[in-house]
């Protein structure tokens, strides 16, 4: 149908085309005649409110991580023996735990380590995975085979289990936890980057650049990498959610950072013992994890839709 302008359209063909368009439109919009523009605008507004809310939630939690003392009403280590296991109230928004600590303040102070683990492991994973994927995709040949087979092997162990195993082998601690989660996310980033590089490498403008006498290094840094980065960045945004979840999970199992101020996963794990008497200790740290991951995923989804023309209007 694209070149119908070029070819003379017979009467029969015009009718056929009209029928096709009608049928496609019917299938897509359930028969209701909605202007395409109006539809796009209404969807854009509803989705945008959500994105703004998600952005605010992320900004607030980052604020908690950076300046917890401005937001938390109590010190996270302050034990008030007069207020043990109190239900949420005006004085203690999220209630108090077994030691009389304010759960809201604990959640606020716990943000720092929780986000730090998630963000650093994504950066680590993207750097290692992106580099390996770029090398595999750009150099190709035997090096490509070796790198990708190693990635395949890494993928035979489900992500959380691989992170768990590495964390167990390395021992507890923030750095080890980050390393474990980063390594377990490397194969995913490497695969995407490799695919992207290979797709870009065969484009005409790359050949043109080579033909003009550009050095391979220049072509890679100036043309291939900048044009391959978007999907990796989108994937990293969505990956931040899973890294936070993985960090909280490992922390929940006791492989986290053993500190006086627990991160969200460790806080949840501590509250598990008081489930029948104090629902709030477990509920609120989990809510914080969910709100952050949900917001990041919303933003990532939206970004992916914007980058990938195939997904427009979903």
């Amino acid at each position, binding site marked *: 149908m694209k070149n119908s302008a070029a070819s003379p359209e017979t009467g029969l063909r015009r009718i056929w085309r009209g029928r096709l368009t009608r049928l496609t439109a019917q299938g897509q919009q359930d028969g209701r005649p909605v202007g395409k523009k109006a539809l796009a605008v209404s969807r854009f507004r509803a989705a945008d409110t959500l994105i703004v809310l998600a952005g605010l939630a992320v900004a607030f939690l980052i604020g908690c991580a950076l300046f917890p003392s401005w937001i938390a009403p109590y010190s996270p280590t302050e034990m008030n023996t007069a207020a043990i296991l109190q239900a949420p109230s005006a004085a203690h928004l999220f209630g108090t735990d077994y030691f009389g600590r304010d759960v809201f303040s604990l959640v606020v102070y716990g943000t720092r380590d929780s986000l730090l683990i998630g963000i650093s492991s994504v950066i680590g994973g993207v750097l290692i995975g992106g580099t390996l994927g770029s090398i595999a995709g750009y150099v190709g040949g035997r090096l490509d085979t070796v790198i990708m087979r190693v990635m395949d092997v890494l993928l035979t162990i489900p992500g959380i*289990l691989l992170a768990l195993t590495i964390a167990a*082998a390395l021992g507890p601690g923030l750095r080890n936890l980050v390393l474990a989660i980063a390594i377990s996310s490397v194969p995913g980033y490497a695969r995407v980057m490799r695919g992207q590089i290979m797709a870009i490498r065969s484009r005409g403008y790359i050949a043109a650049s080579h033909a003009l006498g550009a050095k391979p290094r220049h072509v890679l840094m100036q043309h291939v990498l900048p044009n391959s980065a978007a999907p990796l960045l989108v994937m990293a945004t969505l990956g931040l959610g899973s890294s936070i979840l993985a960090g909280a999970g490992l922390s929940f199992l006791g492989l986290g950072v053993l500190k006086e101020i627990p991160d969200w996963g460790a806080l949840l794990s501590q509250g598990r013992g008081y489930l029948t008497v104090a629902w709030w200790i477990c509920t609120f740290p989990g809510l914080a994890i969910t709100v952050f991951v949900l917001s990041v995923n919303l933003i990532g989804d939206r970004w992916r839709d914007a980058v990938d023309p195939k997904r427009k209007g979903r």
Partner: protein
Amino acid sequence: MLQTVIARLVSSLLVIVGSLALVFCIFYLLPGDPVLSMVDPTSVSPEVIENLRHQLGLDRPFHERLLTYFGDMLTGDFGRSLVGSDPVLPKILEQVPSTLLLTAASALVAVVVGVTLGVLSAVRKGGMIDLIARIVGLFGISMPTFWSGILLILIFSVQLRWLPSMGSEGWQTLILPSLALGFVGAGSIVRMVRGSMLDVLNEPFITTLRAKGLREPLIQYKHALRSALIPAITLIGMQIGDMLAGTVIIETVFSRQGIGRILADSIMAKDLPVVQGIVFFTAIVYVGINLLVDLSYAVIDPRIRRKGAR
């Protein structure tokens, strides 16, 4: 067809050998010293540590250790637990049925909820079901399993007292853990099925079918669904593997028996042979599931069936 099966089997075997080497490398090459994690270096003499190292064969060269390790694993000798010193393999096998049952139940939840919601939301795009599907999809991938598990316990065990919060006896104990674990898988599957179903519904062959005058349900549920399920099946295979791995958290939350629970306990006790054995076991199951997924393509997708090996 037979050629495809054999090729896949061989590559799966190679991958399993690779994952065996990977597990070996994680435990013996990373900077953690297994001996130092077994004993406290401040309380025992260096000779004791040296002795232990010799006993475990850690003083031998790398390739020798790797070969011994391969030989042991392939003959089913997974070593002995450092705690209680019982053999690892029977200890794992004893717990396998409970974990596989939980994984299967979770997979059932994930596939039924995920595929149904995904298909319906694509067919009725913009409607109520679509909204529900989007919420399930987003929350499924955003909620930590341990939290959804704990919320289920709070609601159905602590408040309503309908279902037990712990244990592994009887079918009632299976419901909450499989819901918590299955929900995560359902989230990913909904997103995938919805997306690929929407893609397929826009393809020219669907338009042709409509032009032919075929009834809409037949187009959607026979022709479109079949094509849309092909990418979804890869994801379902991976999700089942993730759910198997997820039992390490869910079995801990619900105090259920199983290899996930032993794994969590062994990690805390630094019982590396058991950890190693369980990770290797999971890798084998995971590779097996992916093999089945690959082979199932041939059954579903006539293009692959005709082409033979791909």
